[in-house]
């Protein structure tokens, strides 16, 4: 077996023997790896290999569905995420979904601050304004929407909506941001904007993203992992993996032989 931990010192996330099963069918099998703080880690692999399943296990989204079982350990700063309340975990691990999903009944402002409002966390108005501005500036959306903060979020374009959703996740100052193919529903211009954004965001946040697009992984990720049929085939620095894949399956995938 190849070294899947990739010699990362002081990892923010340590995944140990993580398995996820739908009914009795394992979609992710015994994945073990460490994730580096303040870096972009890309999860790659062909359709149905368990990329999203693995990502969604990290903020315990699977608990919504009774037929899904998760085994193993995930340590976030040395605390097992399965031992902490899901609500607390999810506030530390923001998530952005494949399709932009702003809350349709809320304004742009309320969407960004939704984490506070919905959780009943009382914050002064001036502080709220500050959080909204900072989060929207972080996603480079402030300039575009600062005059229409009270309009509904659903009036924005797809790319803007997705950046709004990232801002919503950032508002809580999470440690990790999980992104599930965040650009797959967007056009190339919007995709480029989000990619630039992620590179900028890794200064303050740890980013774990699922991507279907090898080019994207090569452009923006520091570490990549290649999943195949639910198994972790290879994990390491993106540069090394793309120039010198160790496993023949990784090579075949990267050269477009399957996937």
């Amino acid at each position, binding site marked *: 077996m190849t070294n899947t931990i990739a010699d990362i010192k002081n990892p923010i996330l340590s995944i140990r023997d993580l398995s996820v099963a739908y009914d009795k069918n394992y979609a992710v099998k015994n994945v073990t790896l460490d994730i580096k703080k303040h870096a972009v880690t890309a999860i790659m692999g062909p359709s149905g290999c368990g990329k999203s399943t693995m990502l969604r296990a990290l*903020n315990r*989204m699977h608990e*919504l569905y009774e037929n899904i079982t998760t085994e193993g350990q995930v340590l976030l700063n040395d605390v097992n995420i399965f031992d902490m309340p*899901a*609500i*607390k*975990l*999810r*506030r530390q691990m*923001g*998530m952005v*979904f494949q*399709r932009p*999903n702003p*809350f*349709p*009944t809320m304004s742009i402002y309320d969407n960004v601050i*939704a*984490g506070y*409002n*919905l*959780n*009943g966390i009382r914050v002064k108005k001036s502080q709220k304004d500050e959080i909204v501005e900072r989060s929207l500036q972080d996603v480079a959306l402030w300039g575009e929407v600062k005059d229409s903060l009270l309009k509904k979020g659903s009036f924005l374009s797809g790319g803007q909506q997705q950046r709004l*959703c990232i801002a*919503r*996740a950032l508002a*809580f100052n999470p440690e990790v941001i999980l992104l599930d193919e965040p650009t797959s529903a967007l056009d190339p211009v919007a995709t480029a904007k989000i990619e630039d954004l992620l590179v900028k965001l890794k200064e303050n946040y740890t980013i774990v993203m699922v991507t279907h697009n090898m080019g994207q992984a090569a452009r923006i990720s520091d570490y990549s992992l290649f999943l195949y049929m639910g198994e972790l085939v290879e994990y390491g620095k993106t540069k090394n993996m793309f120039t010198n894949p160790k496993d023949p399956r990784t090579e075949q995938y990267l050269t477009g032989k399957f996937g």
Partner: protein
Amino acid sequence: MESINTFLDQDHSARRILKDKLVLAGIIALSLVTISPIILIISKLVVKGYRQISLDFLIKNTPDSYEAITAVANGEIIPGGIANGIVGTLLMVSVASALAIPIGVLTGIYLYENQGKFMANLTRSVSDILQGVPSIVLGLISYLWIVKHVTMGYSALAGSVSMSIMMLPMIVRSTEETLKMIPQTLKEAALALGVPYHKVLLRVMIPTGFSGLLTGILLGISRILGETAPLLLTALGSSIINLDMTKPTSAIPLLIWEFYNDPNMIDLIWSSSLLLMTMILILNIVSKQIIANRR
């Protein structure tokens, strides 16, 4: 080749156009047959009822037979109005809604949350059966439960209870269907922000599906507005305005029934029906508008 050419040469277009026109005419004729009852009903009500409609009609109680006989004999409009019925209907419908909406919405949420489970399936089936129970039977049940044992006599409460049972299945179904239409990703987005489940339901799901819920409620109300049979067995009727839930109370459909049985009051049937019909039409149009705006 020869045969194909002769086939193509034959001009069938005239026949096809004729056929097309005949079918179109048939569709228009049948559509007219479908909408004609409602047009005939409304026009009849307007023609026969508009003379009685005035401010007095809305704010005065029903006249007694003697007043009506005198007015009819003198060729005048029957004095008085149906305020007791209007107030009674509004009172009973409000109380019925207050009973049925919370129970119905909560049951709808329960069904949505427990798709495919035995208890949920059972509840859904029972609720569907409830929708098919004849309203007179619901009136009888309410008579047994409320009139005989709670208010010890005919009462507005008994009327409201029978109406609320009638509304319940509609609200349950519309709540469940509305929640089902909300994309799962929206729920996940809220959960991913660390929002507790009950708040996701109350602050994200319900507001997002609010127009759907409202439509179900309005259609439920428009259905019970015109119910007469259960009220005959429960609310009974009253010739004055009554706001006491434990006392017999009038309602517009009850008054129509009473007017029908009193040959001197015939004129009031039409105006009362017109008013009731207008209320139901408005509710239906409003709910149709809400559905249209949602799309």
